[in-house]
């Protein structure tokens, strides 16, 4: 019997422009694949894609909703890019988001019926610190006790979720709320200012933009950014260069946690306005897709977060207008990642066919 032999070789000459173009290619392939799925499901593919990707953002309200949905994804993904670039696998951004929300929410409840311009900044700051401290747990365990940060950060998500459950059911539940698992609505002074009447877009977007700019500054213009990049390419090189690996690991986790905490506090002081059990529909996990889709690059992440946010909105509109099952949104997210990883593989590796050979077995 004869078999085809295949050899996989690394390519050395990957051009930078193609590297940043493959996500765009992945999105087009997703649109194409999505069209086929809609067709099989019995919908007109063009019409379905229109309802999925154009209708949701065809008015100002839709655009504002897109930004609201993209804001936490962008923030978390920016933070994660620090970790992922330096080979630290923080999978627990969801937990850091929730913990940031818990700390920020606790402060907001402390300032209940308390006016003053300083209330909101204190809440936001405490949320960021909360997320940061929570992210330091896996970082310290990794650097000093050699634990696996993937497992620790992931398991801490459940700890954060259970803590939130406990607080909103028990000590922090609304005294006038008939025991329902939620806190009071925060007072006005603890809410993000709304930018335009009638829309939900709030001042949190400025925090996101500032964070994006700062992270670009850190990643590309500082010694720390250089360390992160070198560690990402090769840990050994980083060691030879004499970088203090442990400090850097802790710092990237702190940045990542602070960003996730900011996202959490932005949600509860923004569109939600209170603490309850569902402050995040798994933003922390979706942001992992966003980070990679954006090539771990601050500008790329902005676009990636908008696109992924659109898949959520699109799934809702497509269900309202065409009764397309809502889970197609998740299918689209999966397809984007699949096509991105697939084209990456072909980008970095060559597949060589070495001809037929006799199989000795």
């Amino acid at each position, binding site marked *: 019997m004869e078999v085809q032999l295949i050899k996989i070789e690394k390519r050395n000459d990957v051009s930078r422009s193609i590297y940043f173009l493959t996500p765009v290619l992945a999105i087009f392939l997703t649109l194409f694949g999505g069209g086929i799925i809609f067709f099989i499901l019995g919908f007109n593919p063009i019409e379905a894609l229109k309802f999925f990707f154009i209708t949701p953002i065809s*008015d*100002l*309200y839709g655009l504002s*909703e897109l930004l*609201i*949905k993209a804001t936490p994804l962008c923030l978390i993904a920016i933070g994660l890019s620090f970790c992922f670039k330096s080979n630290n696998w923080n999978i627990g951004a969801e937990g850091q988001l929730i913990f940031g929300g818990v700390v920020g929410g606790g402060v907001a409840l402390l300032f209940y019926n308390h006016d003053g311009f300083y209330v909101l900044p204190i809440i936001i700051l405490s949320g960021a610190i909360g997320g940061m401290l929570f992210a330091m747990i896996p970082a310290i365990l990794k650097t000093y006790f050699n634990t696996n940060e993937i497992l620790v950060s992931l398991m801490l998500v459940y700890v954060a979720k259970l803590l939130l*459950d406990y607080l909103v*059911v*028990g000590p922090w539940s609304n005294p006038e709320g*008939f*025991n*329902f*698992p*939620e806190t009071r*609505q925060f007072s006005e002074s603890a809410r993000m200012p709304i930018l*335009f*009447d*009638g*829309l*939900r877009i709030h001042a949190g977007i400025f925090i996101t933009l500032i964070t994006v700019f700062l992270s670009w500054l850190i990643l590309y213009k500082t010694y720390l950014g250089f360390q992160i990049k070198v560690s990402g390419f090769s840990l050994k090189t980083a060691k030879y260069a004499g970088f203090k690996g442990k400090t850097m690991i802790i710092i990237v986790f702190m940045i990542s946690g602070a960003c996730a905490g900011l996202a959490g506090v932005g*949600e509860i002081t*923004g*569109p*939600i*306005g*209170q603490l*309850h*059990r*569902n*402050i*995040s*529909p798994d933003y922390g996990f979706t942001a992992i897709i966003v980070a990679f889709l954006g090539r771990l690059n601050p500008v790329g992440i902005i676009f990636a977060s908008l696109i992924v946010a659109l898949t*959520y*909105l699109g799934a*809702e*509109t497509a*269900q*309202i*207008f065409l*009764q397309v*099952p*809502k*889970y197609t949104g998740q299918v689209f997210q999966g397809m984007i990642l699949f096509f991105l990883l697939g084209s990456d593989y072909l980008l970095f590796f060559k597949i060589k066919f070495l001809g037929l050979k006799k199989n000795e077995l």
Partner: protein
Amino acid sequence: MYKLFLRSLISVLFFLGFSLNVNAEFKVGFVYVGPTGDHGWTYQHDEGRKAVEAAGIKTTYVESVPEGADAERVIRQLAQSGHDLIFTTSFGYMDPTNKVAKDFPNVKFEHATGYKREHSNVATYSARFYEGRTLLGHMAGKMTKTNTIGYIASFPIPEVIRGINAMTLAAQKVNPDIKTKIVWVFTWYDPGKESEAAQALIDQGADIIMQHTDSTAPVQVAEKAGVWSFGQASDMQRFAPKSILTSIIDDWAPYYVERSIAARDGTWKQQDTWHGLKEGMVAMAPYNSAMGDDLVKEVEQLQKDLASGKVHSFTGPIYDQKGNILVAEGAVADDGMLAGMNVYVKGVEGDIPQ
């Protein structure tokens, strides 16, 4: 100046959105918290929606809408896209529903299981599930050998505590030695957690399993362990044919059809609806003949009496866990007390999580 311009632009767009929808066909929208295939809570609401559709009214639904920041957008989108009546079918949609209702005074909103009606276009509705629990308690009290009833509870809100109490009171009436053991799972739908809870209760000696959660996992665990169980929200008989004695069925269909027609014909009014066995919003699945003809007859009679009002689930004397009297001999708990119920009756084990 710029901000002023933007504001006026937005209001013009809003206005256009309104006027475009005025002449559109009458449509009803539904917002679900779970997938339509959960075979419990959401499944039953979707059955109700299908009944509205069968009555010749166009409907739309959005499933698995998280109770966080997304709910408001989905509700608003339904309102904006020409839906005239919107049912939001989970407690967590309470504030978002009221917020959107404020901006769409011409659209009617109906929120299930909540208590806020902040605007004249918001109505609330729920069902007297506790009447069904009274029937379950009667059967459980008669069928148990270990005198221990296992109860999987979701959240310590009045609705759930009311169910626990109604069941325990009815069980005690036929079997004074009854004890109710409770596991709080703090979720409405999590097959994994629910089946663990069922197993834990069986391990503690419960030979009757009932649930105030939505998945079919507990009845399946009961079937395997060979103990009795009761289905929740929809008829779960086919998931545990031997074990299930009956199921409490939430039948929203008549209510949804009635309210949709009222909204279409312009007779819709704000109200707070709390229907039970009498109106058919709470119904019972066929009784399992394994409990014997005599018991089936007894339960059927009790069901009739509850529906006619001859028997009330909360008739005094009712004592709390410490023995203080809650409802005097011969008296009946009023709806206000039922709506805010936050203590266990005597015979329930443990404390309410606070």
